[in-house]
């Protein structure tokens, strides 16, 4: 019984922590992009204020599916937190969590898709169709990498993969398989929807895509969902390629470095058109991933 209370407490702690950290990271990203653009940019705690304001505003619902979509997106993403080790915190570390995480992330995107279809705005539907196509784009190389790793370390639990890199930093996967880490980094940018691959929320083409109809608390929920997604994807990358960390501080620091690099890299490039984005994913990243996989298998 105590075990359940402990797990619930642990779960609530992780959710709140990752939300707060995610928003902080978004604030830092805005600051970095601002500095590149020769300006000061909003204060770092600005996302917290945005979320608080959004929850204070009225919002128009477009029917049950629209509401359910937002909740499902947030719920799906929080569910994936169970299976990702954040430094030493770990809820479930059984086998197969890698596949489970990929599957749950897909649920979150589908939730958002359902919500936007409910909104009935053509620009939203164009946006969400782009998001799903882009998912298709980056899922392929990512799966190849994951299967390669699973095959290499003979375990399909994220915790297991993270433990496999224990010991000195030399046997982090980043150094063991640098090419695969680079591909994963590019895929990471695609998954987070950062700059070169953000055609799904392109304001100048389709008026901020799927979220075009959601204001007030719906936008607040989607913002939180985005913050948790950032933390999840960064955590996955750090666990798989930077060997996780003993305590949460080092883990956060590693995530921060990866996040800053992704932001800086992203702010230089205009966005791909959706089909160019997918072609890009299927050309280089997929090729390298397959080569790396073959190298591992033989």
């Amino acid at each position, binding site marked *: 019984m105590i075990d359940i209370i402990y797990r619930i407490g642990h779960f609530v702690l992780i959710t709140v922590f990752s939300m707060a950290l995610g928003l902080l990271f978004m604030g830092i990203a*805005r600051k970095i992009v*601002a500095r590149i*653009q*020769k*300006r*000061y*940019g*909003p*204060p770092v705690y*600005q996302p917290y*204020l*945005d979320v*608080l*304001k959004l929850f*204070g*505003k*009225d*919002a*128009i619902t477009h029917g049950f599916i629209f509401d359910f979509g937002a909740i499902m997106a947030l719920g799906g993403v929080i569910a994936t937190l169970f299976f990702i080790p954040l430094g030493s915190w770990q809820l479930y570390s059984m086998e197969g969590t890698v596949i489970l995480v990929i599957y749950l992330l897909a649920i979150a995107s589908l939730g958002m898709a359902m919500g936007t279809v409910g909104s009935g705005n053509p620009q939203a539907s164009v946006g969400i169709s782009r998001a799903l196509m882009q998912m298709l784009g980056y899922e392929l190389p990512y799966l190849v990498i994951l299967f390669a790793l699973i095959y290499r370390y003979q375990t399909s639990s994220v915790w297991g993969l993270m433990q496999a890199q224990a010991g000195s930093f030399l046997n982090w996967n980043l150094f063991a398989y640098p090419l695969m880490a680079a591909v994963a980094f590019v895929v990471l940018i695609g998954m987070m929807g950062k700059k070169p691959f953000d055609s799904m929320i392109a*304001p100048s083409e389709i*008026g*901020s895509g799927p*979220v*075009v*109809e*959601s*204001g*007030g608390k719906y*936008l607040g929920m989607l913002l939180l969902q985005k913050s948790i997604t950032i933390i999840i994807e960064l955590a996955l990358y750090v666990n798989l390629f930077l060997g996780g960390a003993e305590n949460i501080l080092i883990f956060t620091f590693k995530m921060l470095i990866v996040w800053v690099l992704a932001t800086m890299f992203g702010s230089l490039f205009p966005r791909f058109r959706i089909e160019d984005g997918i072609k890009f994913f299927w050309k280089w990243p997929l090729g390298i991933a397959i080569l790396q996989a073959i190298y591992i298998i033989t």
Partner: protein
Amino acid sequence: MNNNFVKGSWQEILDWAQNKSINMLHYCTGCGAIELPPTMTSRYDMSRFGIGPAATPRQADLLLVTGYLSTKTLRRLIYTYEQMQAPKFVVGFGSCTINGGMYWDSYNTIKQLDKYLPVEMYIAGCMPRPEAILDGLLKLKKMIADGEADGYQRYQDNLEYYHQNQEAVLGEVQRTQ
């Protein structure tokens, strides 16, 4: 749209949050909009105050009426305003929104903005400089924080007055709710 306000401290917190982060609708209705890019981008950078552009009316709190309004734009502006969520604010830029400005004898522009939409404040200028815009927005933030920015409330209370004026100029206007 019955917005039930919970009076007391919760409202103050919301007002405080609202003034810290304002989303300005990216819709340049008139010629004054040319002074918005310098204000939004690196030279005067209004995002320092938490004010940033929003692509759609749903996400926007602040509607800047930058200068004159032709009747065609007025119709779309009313649809936009009604799509925005309370609390929402309208700020009038330049002389055209006060008394017709340069186009006081033009057959296609409206002369007084506050007959059609509730206006929080006016910024003098033709068109106002970025510094004047920032002064205005800072004053707006203070007003929101003190809970004085109640334009949307005024719009609700005398809806009939606004609808009448709008129909006087535009003929029939499609109402959402």
